[in-house]
């Protein structure tokens, strides 16, 4: 079964705009991770946030985590056409990584 649900399922923006994706989960976690998947390829690890952290930055990525609401968000600033991909949140607990349903992001030039 999948732990996380992501919102929106699909997002279409113009280059230069910001993209925000949200993830909700159900059980307690050790950490939450975000992955990117280009069409037909494997997943690439983007960023990991521990359960005792509230916000983390990596380049143009900003992740927030609210364990009281069991939710996380991924913000991609100044998006580029190359950011077009599917983005998945994954929660780690009990030594198991469980993926959400994903958000398909389309960035148009």
């Amino acid at each position, binding site marked *: 079964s*999948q732990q*996380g649900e992501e919102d929106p399922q699909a997002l279409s923006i113009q280059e230069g705009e910001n993209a925000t994706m949200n993830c909700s989960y159900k059980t307690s976690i*050790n*950490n939450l*991770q975000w*992955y990117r998947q280009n069409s*037909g*390829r*494997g*997943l*690439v*690890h983007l960023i*990991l946030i*521990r359960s005792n952290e509230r916000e983390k930055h990596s380049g143009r990525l900003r992740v927030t985590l609210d364990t009281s609401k069991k939710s996380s968000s991924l913000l991609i600033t100044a998006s580029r056409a190359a950011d077009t991909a599917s983005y*998945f949140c*994954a929660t*780690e607990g009990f*030594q*198991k*990584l*469980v*993926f*959400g*349903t*994903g958000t398909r992001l389309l960035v148009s030039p």
Partner: protein
Amino acid sequence: EAGVAQSPRYKIIEKRQSVAFWCNPISGHATLYWYQQILGQGPKLLIQFQNNGVVDDSQLPKDRFSAERLKGVDSTLKIQPAKLEDSAVYLCASSLDSQMPYGYTFGSGTRLTVV
């Protein structure tokens, strides 16, 4: 460092046939995972190995799926016999230690089509 290697990249088989996938994790990574990703869904964990022992295979359909990790390095996932609903991408991933908060490194996957 070299990434996670998987083969074959694509496979088309008829239902009731058997198929095997191979994975070579990153050198030194103790934990290896097989995920199944059906089109339009997120990956679902099938089995997790710690060295050559099984940690979790609760979602592996054991009547038709089997997996092994010889000598704690390479791993093979087998389906016998295949069903139409097994059509999916099979992803292998490895991590340094399942008890530490590291991201996983994924291979490019094997796309299986059962006709």
